[in-house]
């Protein structure tokens, strides 16, 4: 998932300030500065390519990830999702909307003092599986899915 050692190093060195200065000076584009924003994974058009960029290796299907999301979403523009991982040593939680043009929606690092939980709201273009991948501190991967149907809402006039 996100490269934690690199991120920690950047923060430790107070590099954020330096990077902001470099950006302001036009030396770096924001996307360069955000070295730990996984461009490859976010630009991947398939789930398997995204997982490859995230360095996810053979994730195991599990029932220990609880995904709370609507069976039928009232509006695909705002679909609330809550994820609770019950897997010991959960380090990060990644969310992929399988049918979206760019499936990888983001990853949440909970290893530094947060509970293995995240709530977010996402855009889902058409009925799709929401895939969650949990990475653990000891380098294992677990996954679960929840299907969300997207419907037409109002008069359409």
């Amino acid at each position: 998932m996100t490269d934690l050692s690199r991120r920690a190093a950047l923060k430790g060195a107070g590099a954020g300030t330096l990077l902001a200065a470099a950006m302001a000076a036009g030396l770096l584009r924001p996307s360069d500065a955000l070295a730990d924003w996984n461009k490859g994974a976010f630009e991947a058009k398939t789930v398997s390519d995204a997982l490859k960029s995230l360095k996810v290796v053979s994730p195991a299907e599990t029932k220990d990830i609880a995904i709370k999301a609507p069976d039928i979403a009232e509006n695909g523009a705002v679909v609330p999702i809550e994820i609770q991982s019950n897997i010991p040593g959960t380090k990060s939680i990644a969310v992929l909307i399988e049918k979206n043009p760019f499936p990888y929606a983001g990853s949440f690092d909970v290893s530094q003092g947060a509970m293995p939980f995240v709530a977010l709201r996402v855009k889902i273009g058409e009925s799709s599986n929401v895939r969650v991948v949990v990475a653990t501190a000891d380098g294992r991967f677990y996954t679960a899915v929840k299907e969300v149907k997207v419907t037409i809402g109002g008069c359409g006039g």
Partner: protein
Amino acid sequence: MRALTASILGATTLALVASAAAQVVDPRSEAVATLKRDFKSQGIAAVDRLDEDGVQAICNRSDDKPPKEIAQRLESDQLQQIKYPADGKYLGDWKTGERIAQDGRGMTWSDKAGAPGGGSCYNCHQIGLQETSFGTIGPSLYQFGKVRGYGTDVQKYVYGKIYNAKAFSLCSQMPRFGHVGALTEQQIRDLVALLLDPSSPVNK
């Protein structure tokens, strides 16, 4: 026919006005005057849409429960105005009909003049089972042909109902799609096919 509507309207209005004569202000007249002051023509939706036609006037003045004999006369008046296809063919293409049933556009101030509109059918009706997003203002039309039969008499009825629902039930909530030019002859045929073609998913 216009004269007929007008005379019925006149008589009913007089009766109702007489019964309300004790009131100082007539809220209905005040309401209509207020609407006409506040609303402006926009795009294809001109202010003359605020004027009631005969059917609307009778329904507005009777809480949608017109006296039976007036309802019957006006219904038959509306029925006579239905233009059925000259070739007697009522059945179009159900696949096109499904698209029209899904399409909720047409006749609003944001629609363009002459742009093809839809029937907005799913807004109020369940039709094909594959569409789970359907309204419940009107009854389910699922299995319409299977239940009612596929004969020419049913086809003609459905054509007429979509063309002008008020010809069959004066104060029906269903728009008069053909009567007001919201749907073309071919579009209505396609909708008839959606309900009455045996191969339409409606009848599976």
